């Protein structure tokens, strides 16, 4: 079953996490962008993360893509804390230093476009943590996000150290989906390989 599609972005694509990409993902996790996050030391842990990425997408908890440009894994774009009934989700991009602002924005736009069209998610949040690059805010602005709140000491970076979190939102102006009779939906389980009734 497939829940996470490969989507084109300028200069490359975002694609589901795959075991073949573990070396590239490990490089990414050795350079965490988030303050207080330690570099990953055990590559084997990424096997579990890839398993989780499939389970998260299947149960509409989250979705994860690798960002690939110029034939290289340069980052990940993810949605987490997905609340399907409230049509909202929190997005996140993790990138290597080589990931440009344009690539970051392109990946975010592609993921948001898919979640918006396929799952009718309307409200996208992004949490920028004090200490992260200001370039991330440029990418957010490019995608239409605006600052909604600054959460004081919202992120813990050490035993007694904290950073503020700026929470950005982009809310779609598209009409909300109209509920249909349960069971009449052809898109069974949102499985991209089984969008016709009777297939599995």
């Amino acid at each position, binding site marked *: 079953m497939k829940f996470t599609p490969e989507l084109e972005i300028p200069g490359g694509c975002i694609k589901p996490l795959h075991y073949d990409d573990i070396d590239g993902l490990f490089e990414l996790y050795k350079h965490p962008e988030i303050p207080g996050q330690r570099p990953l030391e055990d590559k084997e842990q990424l096997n579990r993360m890839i398993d989780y990425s499939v389970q998260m997408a299947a149960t509409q908890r989250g979705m994860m893509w690798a960002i690939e440009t110029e034939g290289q894994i340069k980052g990940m774009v993810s949605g987490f804390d997905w609340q399907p009934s409230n049509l909202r989700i929190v997005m996140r991009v993790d990138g290597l230093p080589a990931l440009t602002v344009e690539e970051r924005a392109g990946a975010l736009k592609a993921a948001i476009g898919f979640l918006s069209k396929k799952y009718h998610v309307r409200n996208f949040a992004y949490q920028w943590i004090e200490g992260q690059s200001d370039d991330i805010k440029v990418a957010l602005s490019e995608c239409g996000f605006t600052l*909604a709140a*600054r959460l004081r000491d919202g992120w*813990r970076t050490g035993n007694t150290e*904290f950073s503020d979190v700026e929470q950005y*939102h982009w809310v779609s102006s598209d009409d909300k989906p109209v509920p249909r009779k349960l069971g009449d939906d052809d898109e069974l389980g949102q499985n991209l390989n089984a969008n016709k009734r009777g297939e599995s």
Partner: protein
Amino acid sequence: MSWNFETEHFLIRLPVSDEDGTALFKLLSQNSAVAHIPRLPMTVEAQALDELRRIAMRFETREAAFWLIERKSDGDVIARIGIQYINWMMLNAQLQWELSAECGLEELQEVLPVIVNYLSQDLHLHRLEMRLRTGSDGQSKLLTALGFSCEGTLPSQQEFEGEDIDLDVYSLLTGELKA
């Protein structure tokens, strides 16, 4: 470790599932007590019993803790104050309260320090956050008077009675409570 406390005029206690249904229903059936969350007021007492059972289970797993504020002089429950969405990694939690008309700033200034001190000193929580439906002016004034800071407004957080609801975010860090 006891989760029950006492002040000069109030008992701050965890609810008892098979005893507090009537008192909780009396409190949570008032629209003024729940409109800021926002949530519909309860309409039948069985809802209060369900809520008590749910809260007991959430407490057992340390997902949440809700205290009833009982006035010593007459035994009336004038408020419920609790924490939920506890993030033990980030050391923060969301505070929620439902207040009757008899619980104002003076009463909160007596009971909240006990709860907040427990949360910061015993549970080591650093940040308490409360989210209010935008326009909840009465609640907002209480929070500000108690030392909470308004941090912004999160748009379209839920749908309630056909409306998209924005939520204002207030927070209190360790040591900021004004009592």
